[in-house]
């Protein structure tokens, strides 16, 4: 072998530049944590936040200045590092989501004393590396490793408050459930490898598309592998019936971690799911495939069950957990539409969901730190205790519910439109009906904040500067994506086409 050929090219380096920078940032965060005196620990979080903002600027800058990743590359050209990852617009957009999420979450957790530790921010960043590689991965081995990198960091983060019973319980539950789901998914992936003798999902997809490449006798085995892989992916995106961990883990985890798990982790799960299924690695992406029927069933159940269970919650974190299950259902509509527009709409939805849910959980962090619980009653009379917090929460809830001036409305509109365009008007109808159910419990919280009174209205809720910057950024994101969605949607739509390399 010629040694020279082992030297990677410049585009290959640029393809993993965000990950390289994240590794450097982790090392810096850990080293900085050791240098600082205990009283100055807050600065570790500042370094993590600023560092992730810089990496975000690098990632976006590569796109704006150098058109990297080049959108006109063919499939083969965009596969990097021996087919391990694919550097395309999808990867870029998801990376932007993850970096925005990690930056805002770092800002929110800056002033939470229990989280002012180097390990916390290092784990947040290592989970981000995992997410980023999940979005880029185009090989089953890479995908599995990335999912594990992300998951293991999140298990520890969920149980990070070691002297809080609920947090450790949530961590253990998440870990046990997650390890089980990973094992099942890995079995599914190994069956696919056994059938096709390939690990690259695009190679597998082209094999599956050839008639006769998979003998009819083992179609059942292939379907079994698909079911197992759906179980693993369903766990990541917390789709029903793989959602049981969600309320417990979201309730027990430190609220900034919940914000991170419910946005970035879910987006990463969707990145993998859409990439694998839209490429056709588990059967052609059309309405005759068995997996399509399976996913449609999951979509409908996820939306409906998530919304109905959310109505009965009296704990705000549990309510947002069930709401996030329902939101996963809406996003799945974008996938099962099986069009570039649908996948683009799903990506846009996840992008707006990052801003929306981080804002909602940011308010929950600040309120529950003051009141010491996560009960819905804490929000009674919030508009008098902290008018700006209530306003931020109002925008987040309106966006979650899908009310016009916010991003949530546009996101739902694009999703349902893609479904109708694909001929799935009945699925869009179910989605719209579910959005109505969702409005009930979102607007209940608005009612508590603005119409109800509480006994301790005189006590203001202190908001640190970092947290107010984070909330302001998220709310600006919600409004911007709500009133000027055009460029962002055009961007995601262009990326959506890259999900379907074999059709059209």
């Amino acid at each position, binding site marked *: *072998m010629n*040694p*020279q050929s*082992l*030297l*990677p090219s410049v585009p290959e380096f640029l393809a993993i530049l965000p990950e390289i920078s994240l*590794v450097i940032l982790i*090392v810096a965060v*850990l*080293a900085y944590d*050791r240098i600082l005196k205990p009283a100055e620990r807050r600065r570790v979080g500042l370094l993590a936040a600023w560092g992730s903002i810089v990496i975000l600027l690098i990632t976006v800058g590569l796109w704006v200045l150098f058109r990297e990743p080049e959108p006109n590359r063919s499939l083969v050209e965009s596969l990097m590092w021996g087919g391990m990852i694919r550097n395309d617009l999808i990867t870029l957009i998801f990376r932007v989501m993850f970096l925005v999420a990690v930056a805002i979450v770092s800002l929110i957790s800056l002033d939470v004393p229990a989280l002012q530790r180097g390990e916390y921010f290092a784990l947040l960043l290592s989970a981000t590396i995992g997410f980023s590689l999940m979005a880029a991965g185009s090989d089953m081995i890479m995908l599995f490793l990335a999912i594990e990198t992300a998951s293991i960091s999140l298990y520890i983060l969920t149980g990070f408050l070691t002297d809080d019973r609920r947090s450790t319980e949530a961590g253990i539950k998440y870990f046990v459930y997650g390890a089980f789901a990973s094992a099942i998914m890995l079995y599914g992936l190994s069956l696919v490898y056994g059938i096709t003798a390939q690990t690259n999902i695009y190679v597998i997809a082209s094999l599956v598309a050839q008639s006769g490449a998979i003998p009819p006798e083992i179609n059942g085995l292939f379907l079994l592998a698909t079911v197992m892989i759906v179980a693993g992916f369903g766990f990541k995106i917390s789709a029903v019936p793989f959602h049981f961990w969600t309320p417990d883990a979201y309730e027990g985890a430190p609220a900034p971690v919940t914000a991170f798990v419910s946005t970035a982790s879910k987006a990463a799960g969707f990145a993998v799911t859409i990439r694998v299924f839209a490429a056709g690695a588990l059967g052609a992406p059309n309405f005759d495939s068995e997996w399509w029927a399976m996913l449609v069933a999951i979509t409908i159940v996820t939306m409906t069950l998530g919304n109905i269970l959310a109505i009965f919650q009296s704990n705000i974190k549990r309510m947002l957990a069930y709401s996030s299950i329902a939101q996963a259902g809406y996003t799945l509509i974008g996938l099962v539409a099986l069009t570039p527009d649908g996948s683009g709409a799903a990506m846009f939805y996840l992008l707006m969901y990052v801003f929306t849910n981080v804002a909602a959980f940011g308010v929950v962090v600040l309120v529950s730190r003051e009141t010491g619980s996560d009960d819905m009653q804490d929000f009674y009379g919030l508009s008098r205790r902290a008018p700006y917090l209530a306003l931020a929460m109002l925008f987040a809830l309106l966006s979650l519910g899908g009310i016009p001036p916010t991003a949530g409305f546009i996101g739902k509109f694009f999703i349902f439109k893609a479904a109708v365009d694909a001929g799935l008007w009945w699925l869009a109808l179910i989605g719209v009906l579910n959005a109505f159910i969702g409005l009930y419990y979102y607007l209940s919280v608005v009612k508590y904040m603005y119409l109800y009174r509480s006994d301790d209205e005189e006590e203001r809720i202190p908001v640190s500067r970092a947290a107010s910057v984070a909330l302001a950024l998220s709310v600006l994101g919600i409004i911007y994506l709500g009133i000027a969605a055009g460029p962002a949607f055009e961007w995601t739509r262009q990326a959506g086409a890259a999900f379907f390399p074999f059709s059209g």
Partner: protein
Amino acid sequence: MLADWQFIGIFLALSPIFPAAPVIANWLLGPRKPNPLKQQTYECGVETVGDTWIQFKVQYYIYALVFVVFDVEAVFLFPIAAAYDQLGLFAAFEVVVFVLILAVGLGYAWSRGALEWT
């Protein structure tokens, strides 16, 4: 194809006999003369004291985790060393980066006092 599995079948059928035969023969042929000394839990060694479910120092875990750093390092360095002739300068550079990342982990654990036994 099926013929290949015959051998495994024969192996599976025969293999339990070999460990079982001495145990059964011992049971059938051996004389039985019990006395209190022989009936003790540990016929050889020391009688246990106290409960089996005791807490032991949590630092054993930390030590084990730090050891994993070296463990992983060795596992990955070995194939690289074996293929060193065919790899270029770039691979050597990659190895350096890899070892450095692990060294940072070790250094962090060290500075947090994980290697101090108190």
